[in-house]
């Protein structure tokens, strides 16, 4: 697999480290009512057969955290963005 890093261009898979689901949002840790949201955030992950957003770290390159939109069935990469922009709001 090859990922096109916005800084470095297209690079081979082994330069990157996978983290996982980029669609989850960190809940408020000061909200006592957020227990279920926290359990979901920490433990629950979707594994859709189709497009998915994932965090990847360009660990052997520029150290940018990326959000990669990838087809989980074909491994086709549709979009790569910096994490600060790419995570779904």
């Amino acid at each position, binding site marked *: 697999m*090859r990922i096109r890093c916005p800084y470095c261009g297209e690079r*081979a898979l082994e330069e990157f480290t996978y983290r996982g689901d980029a669609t989850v949002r960190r809940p408020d840790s000061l909200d006592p009512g957020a227990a279920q949201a926290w359990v979901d955030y920490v433990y629950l992950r979707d594994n859709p057969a189709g497009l998915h957003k994932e965090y990847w*770290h360009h660990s052997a390159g520029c150290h940018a955290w990326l959000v990669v939109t990838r087809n989980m069935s074909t491994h086709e*990469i549709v979009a790569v963005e910096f994490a600060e922009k790419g995570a779904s709001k």
Partner: protein
Amino acid sequence: MTTARQPNRLGEGGLIDRSQTVRFEFDGAPLAGHPGDTLASALLANGIRLVGRSFKYHRPRGILTAGSEEPSALVELRTGARREPNTRATMIELYDGLSAASQNRWPSVKFDVLAANQLFGPIFSAGFYYKTFMWPPTFWEKVYEPMIRRAAGLGRGAGVADPDHYEKAYAFCDVLVVGSGPAGLAATLAAARSGARVILCEEDFRLGGRLLAERYEIDGKPARDWVETVEAELEAQPECRILRRTTVQGVYDGGTYAALERVNDHVLKPLAHEPRQRLWRIVAKRVVVCAGALERPIVFGNNDRPGVMLAGAVRSYVNRFGLAPGRRAVIFADNDDAFRTASDLAQAGIEIAAAVDGRRTPSRAAQEAAEAAGARYRAVAVIERVRGLHGVKGVEIRDEKGRERMACDLIAVSGGWNPTLHLTTHLNAKPQWNDRLAALVPGALPPGMSVAGAARGTYGLAACLAEGEEAGAKAASECGFAASASRPRASDESVTASPLWQVAESKGKAFIDFQNDVAVSDVKLAACEGFRIPEHLKRYTTLGMATDQGKTGNANGAAVLAAVTGRYIGAVGTTTFRPPYTPVAISAFAGHHRGPDFRPARLAASHGFAEEQGAVFVETGPWLRALYYPKPGEEPQDSVNREVATVRGQAGVCDVSTLGKIDVQGKDASIFLDRVYANTFSTLPVGKARYGLMLREDGFVLDDGTTARLAEDHYFMTTTTVNAVKVMQHLEFCQQALWPELDVQTVSVTEQWAQFAVAGPRARDVLQGVVDPAYDLSNAAFPYLACGEVTVAGGVPARLYRLSFSGELAYEIGVPARFGEALIRAIMEAGAPFGLAPYGTEALGVLRIEKGHPAGGELNGQTTAHDLGFGKMLSTKKDFIGRFMAAREALTDPLRPTLVGLRPLAREDRVRAGAHLIPKDKEATARNDQGYVTSIAFSPSLGHWLGLGLLSRGPERHGEIVRAYDHVRGGDILVEVRPPCFIDPEGERVRG
């Protein structure tokens, strides 16, 4: 000339260099061949056709093919440490001094004791592993399995380390072409002429593919001339690279291809500094697969006898290698293409006993081809049985008129061709059944791939050339290069086929998979027992397993399965083709990453100094660190005891450069640290350091370390050695993905700073000789947990931190890495009058265990802050990573095993790490298990072993006696539960 010693070598012809002789050895017999030979062709030229014994039945086996699909002719190549088992004789390029041996036979290939297995044929039927050896169960490990392993199996591994080396290489191109037959050469030429960067991979040592084996003409001249012309033109193209002896093994995402180049398998041993093999990773924008097709045999009685050979292979041996694989041949086929063999045999002076056409209707083209070569054409006829044991002696033919016996020593067999579509399916595309071709053809193709020629089911020469050229030009133009056509002239031969698959009336064992000894009877039995899907059939009968992965057997297997189960063959399906296409040695995948070179070792700044001192090193994470510094006559434990005592009594110096070091700067640096640490850092004054605890978002401890505040907006963080990378990645995630609005930057400076701990009651005295006199190190001016910038050795910038891991008066001093080695020498010199000695990580560990500081054994990913006694550090006033989940009831339950110190009741007892903690008078069962020992050390300060452990309700149980039960090593001692800190619990020394 030594051709006289090669009885089956033809007088002329072939792509071999008859002016030179190559000497080799097979089963100890000295033989000769020529450059251009393979081991298989040289053996055939020498009249040797029995080359091994089969896997299960030890049946005599010969050479079936002339390529990498060979199932039968597996030999042990080379001797000693370079011995390689199960090597296909058809793929071994002959070289001077080559030595090979037949396999799976004892005492000799002609007389093999275990051939008696054939008498027990019924025992070795499909699924025999699962059925025959079921009872009694205990017999499996001790009796059956060793017996089967001795009887079955093929070659022997070398048993010692491979003396050769292997490397990995990377290449990038516009167009990758796989295979150099007519389609591949036409594709490469079209793409290369456009100026595109092209790589052509050819498995053989010679370009040309089938063109080398056939008597085709292109542009009115022998096809081999065209191959040479094209080759010369490609060699002259600067952007075209030809990789011979290179098999493309796999297709991966994003246009990535793996290819194995056999760089030095064709010489006695690799030249110095050259690898034996090279594993290429090729990234290509487009790939044109021109991998050709694989001929399949027909299934008939005793069709595995040496002398039964695929018709295409017969033509290869006659035309390319200039030899006669037999004296009197029978052709048995179900397609017109195979009957062209008649003319090649006749031209080589080989008699043709009969041309047996297994199809239901006679073929005019086949009849003409046979009769033109003077062969008798037998329509609607089959071979029912082959006669001869160690080699073909004759056949029994049956046609509409009846049966006939016929003498022959060669059977050229062809059941049609299967497109070599393996590479098209590696990314999960399914091949499709084509009725006209009676074969699977490529289905949907992965992005960037096209297929041309026989690999696509296009068999005529002219059609292959045209299709290859078109595919090459299209691939180049998709990469932005303009290609033009040249259209070499050739004609298409007749390839009409109608599959026979198997001779139903076969007498004797009729084999489908030669390598695994799977016969028609096995498939029938398996189908009867419900294994009706090719994937199940494969696992149950082993059909299509091992080195050839069914390249010659799978199609016939599917056909027999279809017939037995009464299904349409197109509906039966196929097993999945996975990489690699042919066997690849593990060494090639490993490349240079072997033994100590598995990964690069990182060396601390003081490594050279430590080596000089005779230090013993240990791997910690990616680093090599000094474990201890032995003095003459010391046992390892003596050295560690001395180093610990030196730190407690005088002073010691230890390289702590391997700790992760992270520079954190920015207006919001303190907010950022408050969020990543469980405790608070915004309140830390400038010029002070503080211990910090990091949690994971699930509430468990991630890492710990000390962080110093160098300025309002500037912190210097340390992490544990092992977690340095993980923590850096975590901080970057927090900064970039969670809180991009914070004005903060982090950077790893682990490599930039060399850092040393100087610890012991004389540490201050030592450092005063190193730090420039302008800096006041007195306790009042530079108290415990102070930090600041100083200079050393007359102006070298340094950072000084008053931190202690040992519990003694201690400092850490950091200098830019290039001064690291000079600094430790300066510290050693300044420390000499005070008895300073270097100490290693073992003493470091003992010191921290005596002090009860948690480290690797306790920060094991399963412990919480509460477990480690740090519950009060968790801030309640701010958000931080792990805050919410750490507060879960189960994570703060006092029943959880919590950090305690452990002291053996009998002082001579040794505490063992990993021992389970059980109440004193209770049985050692899982139910009574209340925790375990995490770290142990012999404490020279106390004169006995001690340990740290995690014990349920630990803090409430100080003074209680419990069992430390070590089931693995048989230890069972009583220990007293204590507070974790054994030395100076009030912490007076660190503040002294």
